[in-house]
């Protein structure tokens, strides 16, 4: 196996910050830090779900990224020249799939696994497996640039 670009310390530190944020939100606000669910619940017409805290969380997410990008734009670098249809298809599947499956990398992957939920373990195993498979097919079978 050919390992490249491994950054163990920032990865562990960043991960610990994610865990801290999820713990804080759960203890102080009583809420689960699942981003796809927070986005869905923040939209107008999302039923009786309280929207204000979700809006505040998302504002923190976006504004901190804006501040960090001003200091170091490289943190948010994207691959050059990706076609819009690829990003659109990727986003569409992500929105539909996380809504149907009730969570994403944060809700199932971080929060769910931390409380040892069998549902979240099944979901995380599934999206990781399909992620590996999709990149394998795109890069090594079809030879696409994704």
């Amino acid at each position, binding site marked *: 196996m050919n390992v490249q670009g491994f950054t163990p310390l920032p990865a562990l530190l960043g991960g610990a910050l994610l865990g801290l944020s999820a713990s804080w939100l759960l203890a102080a606000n009583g809420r689960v830090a699942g*981003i796809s669910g927070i986005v869905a619940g923040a939209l107008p017409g999302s039923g009786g779900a309280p929207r204000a805290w979700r809006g505040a969380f998302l504002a923190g997410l976006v504004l901190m990224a804006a501040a960090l990008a001003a200091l170091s734009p490289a943190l948010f670098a994207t691959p050059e020249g990706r076609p819009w249809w690829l990003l659109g298809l990727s986003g569409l599947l992500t929105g539909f*799939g996380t809504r149907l499956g009730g969570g994403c990398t944060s809700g199932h992957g971080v929060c769910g696994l931390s409380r040892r939920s069998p549902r979240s373990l099944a979901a995380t195993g599934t999206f990781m497996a399909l992620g590996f498979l999709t990149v394998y097919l795109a890069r090594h079978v079809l030879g696409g640039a994704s």
Partner: protein
Amino acid sequence: MKALLSAFGAGALFSAGLSVAGMTRPSKVLAFLDLAGAWDPSLMLVMCGAIGVHGLYWLFDGKRDRALLGGAVERPSKTGVDKRLLLGAALFGVGWGLGGYCPGPAVASLGAGSRDAVVFVLAMLAGLWVCDRVVPAPER
């Protein structure tokens, strides 16, 4: 008001975690998913760090039923694995593998003015909307 400030702070911390970890760079996420190429295992350690800290929290304070700032602590009630969960996770996995964005890093990257993130998030909202229209469900 306190609850809103707290949620804002948690969101800001989450954003810092994602960017320090490198998850806001799709190329890094895709390099993790590319087992057969130049593999970058960093994301495994991101998960270890996050689950390490949040798992410890659950160990020590997992029985809390009132939040510090008031209100009940939200508890996901479903426990069984069903087709809907697996199909949803599978579709998300394909989307993740195509773009290298999951919802958190994509939304955060809006703040960095990333064109890729804008296209991705708009499409993500459309996907979410379509799911609510074609798969009516009282709870997910």
